[in-house]
């Protein structure tokens, strides 16, 4: 299908001009009509005719879409110069003169392909037409309201920069550029989306990136054919290594500082216009348990936080399964007094343990989903309703036993610690409960083996998913479950970085 490639590439543009049938002609009226054909039934398109105050015979016309352009810029850079300036004495109908001497915008271009011009108008540029000229000038007057830069909700830090990505991609690029003012930082633009024509930027550090990974990424991006890319998540699903896996083989971040530090490791960042989430790749399993704050605080504390995150992932995935397995198959494993109290609390409960556990897990997911999609104020009352009313009432009515509520609550709470892996952990947790219900711990062991095997088989852009967890090389395991002090992290991971494998070797 038709993918509009790099429009800044002049050579390709000229080819398209030749191929296109619709070209401007010398009549202003005809040209305007040509555009209006495209914008039939679209009342946001504005057309304004005007001329120079001295040479009124030469008509000009500007076409743009209301709301997409900044009126101030259009007035100051196009309309005002043309009306007020003194035209050269020997002014003939020549767009080059207008472009070079009159229009005062910093970003303007001369084009004659109508299709291309229409795309430019749709993207917020203004097109200036002149009577008796078969060329047009498109001026960048983009200007629409967007969210201001704020701290991302999902990746909060206590200590560290509070800036987060926003929707306009150029703002995001500037945030990365400000952190890495080096000419080796490259932003490669690819336009993806048949309808959305989304600008997608691939950012990398030229002197560190692994060229094989970069080429593979560019190849995959060029092969993408999809109607609309509105979030980098959609794009991620289209270029992932193992799209059927429950684990992500692409990372994501909303923080420019995280993005910049990942660039320094040799990773590649993909930013899509209109999406405040950047994709990072290659992505390793262990990165689920990282937070950028780990590098801003004392390494003892960040190591503890990481260990807690890993532990809580294990708990959230295994706790309900372990409860079911031990309570229904391996009663001899429970300490005697605990068994008495568990047995007493299950007295009179009508459902088998596994049904009870599955039911409560389901209720917990409902509460979570309900709390996620509604406003903050009602969200609190949902949790009160869910936790207090449902929980205590269910126990009092002897519909569920109290230990199950504790186990599910612990599982849910620890799940909140590693939000990025939430999707996978819900599925694994469910699988573990079912296996535990059928086969006890024996079944759970098989489930764990299956997951580990699956994780071992995954790759992210050719890099083994468990690289840092199965390695014995010091440079690959220094920054995993425990973050070593910054000065120990002197080498980049071999697989990920292509060149310049030492962090501080270049400095002397």
């Amino acid at each position: 299908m038709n993918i509009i490639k790099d429009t800044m590439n002049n050579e390709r543009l000229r080819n398209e001009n030749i191929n296109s049938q619709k070209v401007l002609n010398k009549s202003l009226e005809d040209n305007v009509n040509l555009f209006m054909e495209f914008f039939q039934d679209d009342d946001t398109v504005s057309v304004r005719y005007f001329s120079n105050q001295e040479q009124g015979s030469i008509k000009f016309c500007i076409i743009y879409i209301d709301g997409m352009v900044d009126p101030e810029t259009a007035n100051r850079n196009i309309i005002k110069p043309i009306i007020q300036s003194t035209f050269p004495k020997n002014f003939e109908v020549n767009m080059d003169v207008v472009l070079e001497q009159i229009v005062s915008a910093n970003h303007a271009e001369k084009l004659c392909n109508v299709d291309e011009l229409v795309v430019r108008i749709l993207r917020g540029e203004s097109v200036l037409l002149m009577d008796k000229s078969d060329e047009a000038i498109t001026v960048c007057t983009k200007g629409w309201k967007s969210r201001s830069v704020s701290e991302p909700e999902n990746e909060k830090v206590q200590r560290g920069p509070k800036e987060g990505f926003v929707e306009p991609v150029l703002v995001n690029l500037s945030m990365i550029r400000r952190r890495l003012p080096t000419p080796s930082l490259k932003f490669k633009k690819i336009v993806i989306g048949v309808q959305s024509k989304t600008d997608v930027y691939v950012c990398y550090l030229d002197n560190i990136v692994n060229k094989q990974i970069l080429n593979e990424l560019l190849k995959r991006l060029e092969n993408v054919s999809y109607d609309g890319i509105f979030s980098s998540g959609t794009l991620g699903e289209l270029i992932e290594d193992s799209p059927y896996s429950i684990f992500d083989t692409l990372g994501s971040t909303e923080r420019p500082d995280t993005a910049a530090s990942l660039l320094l490791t040799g990773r590649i960042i993909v930013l899509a216009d209109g999406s405040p989430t950047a994709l990072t790749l290659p992505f390793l399993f262990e990165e689920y348990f990282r937070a950028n704050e780990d590098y801003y605080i004392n390494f003892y504390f960040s190591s503890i936080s990481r260990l807690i995150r890993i532990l809580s992932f294990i708990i959230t995935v295994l706790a309900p399964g372990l409860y079911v397995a031990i309570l229904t198959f391996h009663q001899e494993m429970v300490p005697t007094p605990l068994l008495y109290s568990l047995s007493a609390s299950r007295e009179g409960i009508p459902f088998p343990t596994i049904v009870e556990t599955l039911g409560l897990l389901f209720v917990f997911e409902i509460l979570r989903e309900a709390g996620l999609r509604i406003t903050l104020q009602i969200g609190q009352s949902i949790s009160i309703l869910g936790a207090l009313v449902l929980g205590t009432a269910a126990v009092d009515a002897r519909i569920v036993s109290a230990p199950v509520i504790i186990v599910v609550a612990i599982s849910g709470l620890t799940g909140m610690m590693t939000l990025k892996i939430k999707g996978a952990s819900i599925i694994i947790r469910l699988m573990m409960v079912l296996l535990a219900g059928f086969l006890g711990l024996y079944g759970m062991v098989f489930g764990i083996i299956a997951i580990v095997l699956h994780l071992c088989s995954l790759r992210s852009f050719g890099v083994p998913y468990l690289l840092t967890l199965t390695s014995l090389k010091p440079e690959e395991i220094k920054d995993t479950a425990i973050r070593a002090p910054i000065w120990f992290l002197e080498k980049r991971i071999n697989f990920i970085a292509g060149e310049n494998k030492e962090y501080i070797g270049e400095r002397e």
Partner: protein
Amino acid sequence: MNSLKKLLTLLYVFLFIMLFTACWDYREVDRLTIVAGIAIDKAYDDDLLLTFEVADLLGVKSEQPIKSVLIESRGETFMSAIRNTLSKDNPRLYFGHTMVAILSREIAEEGAMKVIDLLLRDGEPRLNINLFVSEEKTAGELFKYKPSLTELSSVELTNILDEQENLAKALPVPAYKFVNAVTAEGISAVMPSLCIIENAEGKTVKVCGTAIFKEDRLQGFISGEDTFALSFILDEVKGGVIVAKKDSDTGEKKVSLEIIESKTDIKPVYSDDKISIEINIDVKTFLNENMSGIDLKGEDKRAELKKCAEEQMNERIEELIKKVQEGYGADIFGFGNCVYKNIPEIWKEKKEEWDKIFRDLEVTVKTNIEIKHLGLLSEPIKIGD
């Protein structure tokens, strides 16, 4: 086609994994009747009469303690007695958490292995079930006297054994240890014995001594004080109190020494075709209580006390050995085992006649009691006028 084959293979693998495995059965925990203790008696017609102490969990709220319920059942064998409970209104008994098994005197005299066999053979009961012998008429009646602190007698009995590391007046004997002792060469088995005593609030059950077995048959009982001496010989002392008595002009004076650490070394000596045993006991203690009023600050006074305590200890141990040699002839101290381990060639010769040799075996006991410190008071409290 290929992918279908793959899928089928995968299905087979999962089927095998799921179905062709060892025992797996799904039991709801509230359907189990958790047996805490078993008492084994003999019914009048040679059947076994079992009394199970189970925890009654029906309608238990978190604030209330667990109550115990006794279930009685009869059968020709242990297993049939267990299964016969099903014909009453009890759900299946669960032995995974059984803590104690009490044998009646009659059963123990006939041979304990007969009934212990099931405990070891079956998958559910643990190998570390604590075994007891009842000194009373039956074993089942012991469950009828409620312990003073906990609700379940079995829990109380287990707690009593756990606390022995501060007392050393009873020897915990888990089922596996009993069987080891019965099957090993040159050692006879023991079990703690239970009796009913008068407490401040009615009657209660107490561990009152040790039952002595020969092979697996009960021979008799020794008292708790004797068990204390026995613990020293068997090197099972982890704590406890040695009371040293000192005679003086004003009557008997007593001092308590708390044991920190104790180590026993048994050595067989073979000379002139005669086996004798040397027991060396090293005890580290500290002075815990001084009822005597003797000022122990001086080196000589302490040496005097030490000598006194050592002599009394030797006396107690020798007395016990003599009692067992003459009264029961069962080598519960494992002297034969010691010979077997240290001089096996002699053991081979003497194995057959060991019972006879044991009866007049010469045993020398050497005790070394070290007094590490005198507690927080270095001098006795002087009573002012």
